């Protein structure tokens, strides 16, 4: 590939999607009419705690009533201090995350400094908005964006609507088909200044309850050793919660769920 060089005033600057458009590397338009039968990703939550934010998402993707993937990763690191969680059409969502990751790093390298956390949230908003034509055909993507704001020293959360509307939340957010159940669990259990362990416990339980009530949300898969993805973002950056810790927490949740059931 020849090296792209642009004239002054004609330069796509720090905008990677615009660079792609300039070299003609954009997919063609979708055919008209609703598009069905493609995998959809579901439930994710994020909440603030004393050191930053916790993000969590189940691993299931469904096509209609069928399970299409058991180990999908819907909670993804965006850069050192932020992450995205997605619900909606899996294909466009994964592509959006990939473009978002590239854009953040591209900006940082070209500009010499990283975007502010709010700048990143705005950037994602533009990408969700760009997906609107596909959303109108049933391929909507509704992400959560969370990260640690180094300038303010706090964790921050945003949720989005399909039009690219961007809403900062103070305590927690939930998205996807199981968001009603997961969000309710977090809402009831949330206290300002939760510690890491309590925040992870709450997020894990929220996904458990969503999986109990929503067929499109996957629970912990003990047989295959596939657990929801949970991650924390603090002043030290992104850190994924290990499978061993999750296995232990879910064993406890399952044990407590079994109590009081007469056999």
């Amino acid at each position: 590939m020849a090296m792209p060089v642009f004239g002054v005033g004609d330069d796509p600057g720090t905008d990677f999607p615009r660079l792609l458009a300039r070299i003609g590397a954009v997919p063609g338009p979708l055919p008209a009419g609703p598009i069905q039968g493609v995998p959809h990703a579901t439930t994710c939550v994020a909440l603030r705690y004393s050191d930053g934010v916790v993000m969590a998402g189940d691993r299931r993707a469904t096509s209609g009533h069928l399970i299409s993937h058991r180990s999908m990763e819907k909670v993804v690191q965006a850069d050192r201090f932020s992450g995205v969680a997605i619900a909606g059409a899996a294909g466009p969502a994964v592509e959006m995350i990939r473009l978002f990751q590239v854009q953040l790093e591209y900006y940082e390298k070209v500009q010499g400094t990283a975007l502010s956390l709010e700048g990143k949230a705005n950037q994602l908003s533009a990408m969700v908005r760009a997906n609107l034509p596909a959303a109108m055909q049933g391929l909507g993507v509704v992400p959560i964006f969370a990260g640690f704001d180094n300038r303010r020293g706090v964790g921050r959360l945003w949720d989005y609507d399909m039009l690219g509307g961007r809403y900062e939340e103070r305590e927690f957010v939930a998205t996807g088909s199981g968001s009603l159940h997961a969000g309710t669990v977090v809402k009831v259990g949330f206290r300002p200044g939760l510690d890491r362990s309590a925040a992870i416990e709450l997020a894990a339980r929220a996904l458990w309850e969503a999986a109990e009530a929503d067929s499109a949300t996957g629970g912990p898969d003990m047989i295959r050793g596939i657990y929801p993805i949970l991650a924390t973002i603090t002043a030290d950056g992104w850190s994924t919660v290990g499978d061993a810790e999750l296995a232990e927490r879910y064993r406890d949740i399952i044990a407590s769920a079994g109590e009081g059931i007469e056999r």
Partner: protein
Amino acid sequence: MSMPFYVAPEQAMKDRADFARKGIARGRALVALRWRDGVVIVAENPSQSLRKVSEIYDRIAFAGVGKYNEFDQLRVAGIRAAELTGYQYSRDDVDARSLANDYAQLLGNAFTHGMKPMEVEILVAEVGLEPGVGDQIFHIMYDGTVVDHADTCVLGGDSEAIAARLAEGFTDGADLASAVKFGAKAIAGADRVVGPNDLEVAVLERGNGRRCFRRLDADEVTGIFEK
């Protein structure tokens, strides 16, 4: 109507080369050398904000001397080429050799066809996955000539003298502190001292995660010289 004077192609090329060389020699030098965990780039640069060394991709760094706006334009072009390849194919498909070739095409084209040649020399360095394998340093000249260096490389300044000092004292597998000090000493020579305040230092470091590039901040560089 006046006729333009005939200029022999040899003379035209020589004039262009002299022009470019003069611009480059005015600037201060930078050196790149292999160390135990990768490649370190040490530049004499009193500015704390205008950078000569920067990150291109996961395992690739860029450095330039000469006219700032010109090598900065090349830096951004390199980031774009690398990110586009990585996005359209895979991050594994981005390598320093093809970047060096692309740079050579740009510089060579400007040298023969442009209004004026670019007054820059640049280097593209890549750190390999395993120690001793795949560490590469490419030096690209103002006319598009590419030279592949095994251990050390000098750009700008009194490059011949510095290259001789580097070749003489280079040791394989040096730790970071001694590599930085050795690089600074090679730039300075016998009758001059280049202190930490005049240096810009960055490394490509194996085992630093996906992004191997790391800039050493002022405190870290000062710390190296105090030891």
